């Protein structure tokens, strides 16, 4: 008897007990559906974390001055004024793994336009012309200030979307005069919307000015608070970190045992950690779902074993009228594979549907990958064979006389 006919016989046998067949499939449907949905949710979370990290900037490192330590009182990161614009230039010039740098000066103060005033929650940031490139933050309208503006400490500024909305409601902010800490600045650009950072801070509520202007005209200082560094590649962030540390220790004349008066924070570290935790999450969810798939497989084995017992007489009849053991074994194997594969395919549809519903209702990103679909289907074939083999062998090994006499 050829395989096609055996297949037909198996399908007829399954069709004869539709309720039992569909209940058996339910185990696999739920198992595969859960795997697809869980992996989808996990990968969605992972990709959203990655995009948030990428949003932060291009292979970014932050160099900040260390804490001020006078008379036993330590002032916290950034309180020591040890970083200079020259350090920033040196990093760009001498560290091969560094692509671009942007020195940063922070300030706070009131913004006034006409009869409106506003204090930006993300503050006033002094920086250089490379800021949009390093932060991957293009402008919505207007333009960013130039190297010339930085050199000449021009009173120009670029504002975030939130500032524009609050101070310039209804008017075009470009070329208007904005008073920052009582100094008049010309608005030359508006940044595109960046949204909240991972701590919930509104990144669009800010004003950007040349750092030289902030130093000289607002704060009367010569140091800078931080340097934003972009490495040439994600992997290069680690070598860049080393190179910067070495360079600054040398520039700040620190002995080998002396504590650094600055520190370097590698954001790729943070990104890696976040990515790692989302991967762990994905694996955790997938293994929980995998357990349910295993339970589904055992369900199939259970039903097939019950089915072999219940159908002992049928097996006896088939053997009496000439079915070889191999044919019986194949029939039962095909039955269990059919159950698990059909269940698997329905489960895929179910899982994809569940992912879509979850992403719509809970507003979670989900990402159903073709690999997880293929893997689930392959796995369900495997479940069918693995859990169907023993019952099938049991059926094929029955003695026709005993089987016929079975009540």
């Amino acid at each position, binding site marked *: 008897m050829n395989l096609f006919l055996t297949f037909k016989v198996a399908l007829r046998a399954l069709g*004869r007990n539709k309720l039992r067949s569909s209940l058996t499939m339910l185990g696999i449907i739920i198992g595969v559906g859960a795997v697809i949905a869980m992996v989808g949710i996990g990968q969605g979370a992972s990709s959203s974390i990655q995009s948030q990290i990428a949003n932060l900037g291009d292979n970014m490192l932050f160099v900040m001055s260390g804490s001020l330590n006078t008379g036993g009182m330590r002032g916290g990161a950034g309180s020591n004024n040890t970083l200079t614009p020259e350090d920033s230039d040196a990093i760009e010039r001498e560290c091969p793994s560094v692509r671009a740098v942007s020195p940063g000066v922070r300030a706070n103060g009131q913004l006034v336009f006409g009869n409106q005033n506003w204090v930006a929650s993300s503050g006033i940031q002094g920086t250089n012309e490379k800021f949009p490139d390093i932060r991957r933050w293009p402008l919505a309208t207007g333009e960013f200030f130039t190297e010339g503006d930085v050199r000449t400490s021009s009173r120009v500024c670029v504002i975030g979307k939130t500032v524009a909305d609050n101070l310039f409601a209804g008017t075009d902010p470009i070329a208007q005069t904005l008073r920052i800490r009582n100094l008049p600045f010309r608005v030359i650009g508006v940044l595109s919307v960046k949204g909240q950072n991972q701590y919930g801070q509104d990144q669009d509520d800010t004003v950007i000015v040349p750092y030289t202007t902030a130093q000289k005209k607002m704060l009367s200082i010569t140091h800078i608070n931080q340097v934003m560094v972009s490495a040439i590649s994600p992997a290069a962030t680690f070598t860049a970190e080393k190179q910067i540390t070495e360079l600054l220790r040398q520039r700040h004349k620190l002995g080998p045992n002396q504590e650094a008066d600055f520190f370097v924070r590698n954001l790729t570290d943070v990104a890696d950690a976040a990515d790692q935790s989302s991967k762990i999450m994905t694996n955790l969810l997938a293994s929980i779902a995998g357990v349910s798939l295993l339970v589904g497989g055992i369900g199939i084995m259970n039903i097939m074993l019950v089915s072999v017992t219940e159908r002992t007489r049928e097996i*006896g009849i088939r053997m009496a009228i000439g*079915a070889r053991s191999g044919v019986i074994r194949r029939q039962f194997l095909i039955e269990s594979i059919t159950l698990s594969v059909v269940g698997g395919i329905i489960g895929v549809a179910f899982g994809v549907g569940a992912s879509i519903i979850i992403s719509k209702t809970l507003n979670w990103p989900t990402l159903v990958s073709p690999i997880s679909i293929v893997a689930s289907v392959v796995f369900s074939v495997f479940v069918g064979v693995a859990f169907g083999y023993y019952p099938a062998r049991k059926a094929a090994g029955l003695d026709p006389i005993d089987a016929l006499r079975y009540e």
Partner: protein
Amino acid sequence: MEARILNDTSETVSKRTLDPLLGPALIKLDHIHKTYKMGDLEIHALRGVSLHIDRGEFVAIMGASGSGKSTTMNILGCLDKPTRGHYYLDGQDVSKLSRDELADIRNRKIGFVFQGFNLLSRTSALENVELPMLYLGIKTAERLTRAKEALGIVGLADRMDNMPNQLSGGQQQRVAIARSLVNHPSIILADEPTGNLDSRTAVDVMSVSQKLNEERGITIALVTHEPDIAQYARRVVVFKDGRVKSDAMIKNPRSAREELESLPPLEDEEDDDE
């Protein structure tokens, strides 16, 4: 009871038994022994059974339970192998064949009719009859034609789409008979085919069997413990203690058809749906 039959039938003994050299028989059991081991205990179910059945015979096999008639039937049906001795079916020694070879022999050469009908449930009469051909690998179109033909022979052409639970006991047994003939077997083995039927339906099933034997020359071996059912056959072999006790021709077998005609017509329950 048994004694009465023997008195009725003992005059004519099968010529085959008297003269074993008379050409190749369809079935030849040659000193068959069957021993079952149950722990340390050996049970001798058959102790040297020799039996010949010719083509076209209608043989009833009788005996009390434990007489060895069921064991003989299992061996005849290639469901079981003898411990010692030889079984020639159509001239082929089948006593040492493998499991799969025996399955093929059962498929091609033997038709089974059982006491409990043994039809596949939730499967139409037609599909039940098709089943043996499925295992022989006969093409769909021919399978359908032959299954319909066989159902026609047993008078169930109009019931082929019914499930077994929509058929009466007699009709189910007719389906089983149709299934047993469909591969043109050398012999039909009927194991207590009337055991689950009322007496009228039993006569009806026997009339189908006699018709197949007389009109189509199909060889039938019938196991029964009912002496009056055995009287429909043309030869009765009685087993006792694992041996053939007697083997005799029946001079005037009962005719099931005539008896059916003489019976008062019933509310024809056979043709009623459940």
